[in-house]
């Protein structure tokens, strides 16, 4: 653990150099980012406009670059609301677990990034292109590493199955593209960008379709099993979330945007029974999870 921590410090150091070389102010522990220069910090307008225009086409037509561009926009909005818990040890841990799970998906080489959002709210989010976020509020409810893997696996499936891209396109077909057509002659990049941003905001406020959430659950448990974790720990997560008072403001948005935890447990139970029993004795990783969280937040000076 000491060695890996040292290695990560090296990574941070390299990153510090890279970031400062781009006129960013950056410090470990604070991650204080100064004002960026305009070069490279602007929106990926060309990609975004292309992506918006591509809503007229089939899903499969979207390129990985376009998907990443939409994902960066989505992540910028998520991070515009809630900052990351900037703790190197915690970041390292969540990313190692997430990368290991993602390695067992159909897109092991995507530039996956995992981060903990500094929010009491209980939730997790994915964006197209592989940005995955879990809130501190949810992280602190979990009991072991397999449960963290469960949350991350669920979000990874949203990316694999392009749930957000499809939802954006569905919404776009319902109006976004039509509006775009009326913007001819105007500042189209800015207009397109604003339309994309408002579409993304609407999607994250409303959440994904129920079937997408259920699919993320039953594909997520398979990713967990492939990665060597006890897949039934997703059901345990749902049992824990089911016990949170629904009147508690920290779980309000989660319940508004997901099927009820009990429904999700029943869905999983029906699909997993007789299929996943052999993996029920796989790793849960309680000690490492608690040790890492305790250390991370004790060091958070």
């Amino acid at each position: 653990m000491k060695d890996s921590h040292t290695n990560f410090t090296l990574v941070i150091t390299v990153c510090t150099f890279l970031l400062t070389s781009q006129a960013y102010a950056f410090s470990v522990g604070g991650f204080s980012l100064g004002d960026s220069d305009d070069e490279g910090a602007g929106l990926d307008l060309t990609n975004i406009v292309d992506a918006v225009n591509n809503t007229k086409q089939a899903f499969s037509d979207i390129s990985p670059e376009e998907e990443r561009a939409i994902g960066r926009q989505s992540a910028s909005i998520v991070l515009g609301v809630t900052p990351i818990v900037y703790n190197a040890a915690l970041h390292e841990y969540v990313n190692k677990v997430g990368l290991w799970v993602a390695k067992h998906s159909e897109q092991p080489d995507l530039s996956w990034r995992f981060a903990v959002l500094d929010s009491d709210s209980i939730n997790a989010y994915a964006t197209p292109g592989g940005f995955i976020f879990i809130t501190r509020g949810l992280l602190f409810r979990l009991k072991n590493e397999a449960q963290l893997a469960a949350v991350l696996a669920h979000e990874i499936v949203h990316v694999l199955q392009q749930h957000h891209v499809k939802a954006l396109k569905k919404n776009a077909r319902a109006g976004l593209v039509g509006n775009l057509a009326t913007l001819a002659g105007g500042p189209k990049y800015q207009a397109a960008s604003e339309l994309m941003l408002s579409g993304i905001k609407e999607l994250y406020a409303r959440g994904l379709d129920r079937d997408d959430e259920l699919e993320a659950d039953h594909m997520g448990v398979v990713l967990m099993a492939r990665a060597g974790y006890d897949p039934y720990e997703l059901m345990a997560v749902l049992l824990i979330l089911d016990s949170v008072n629904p009147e508690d403001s920290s779980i309000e948005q989660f319940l508004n945007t997901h099927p009820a935890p009990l429904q999700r447990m029943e869905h999983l139970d029906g699909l997993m029974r007789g299929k996943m029993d052999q993996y029920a004795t796989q790793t849960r990783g309680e000690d490492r999870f608690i040790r890492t969280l305790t250390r991370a937040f004790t060091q958070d000076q």
Partner: protein
Amino acid sequence: MLRILLGLLLASTQQLLLADQEARPRRDTPLYTSPASQAGNNISLSADSAVTVIKHKGAWVHIKTHNGADGWLPMTAIRLVNKQPAAKQRTASDENDDEVVSTDAVRGIRADTLQDAQPDLDAVKALEQLDVGLENAVSFAGELGLKSQEVEYLALTVAPEKQTDNDNSNLLDEE
């Protein structure tokens, strides 16, 4: 902030495991002698009778009753009793309560906070720079003894929306 985080963490770790947690059956239910629906049962638990979780295995929870009897219940048949400190609940006065520091970060991603959000592309760039490396993730998994398995995705034979609350047996993939 540190103290708050530690306090939350400690509150959380006191419920480290499902073990020893109090629970209640959601409905009247037989108590099974082993974690299988074919297993025999000779006790019936009434809804809301107090039980304590011993452990869980697969989709089953091993519990004991206050009479000292023990047995297994499906995970979907119980509800955990939440003993965490009462979290802040929504009240009409929240909006105007100066005592409560209610930042967007604490409130999280919601329609109202999203509406006001200014995209933070710098934070995205910073996150992109922090790559822990897949090879490090692989060795980290090895330290915990995690081994890759070949597992097929679970196939649906019935659309999810057609499932019923109490009988999911028709969802089993028989291929």
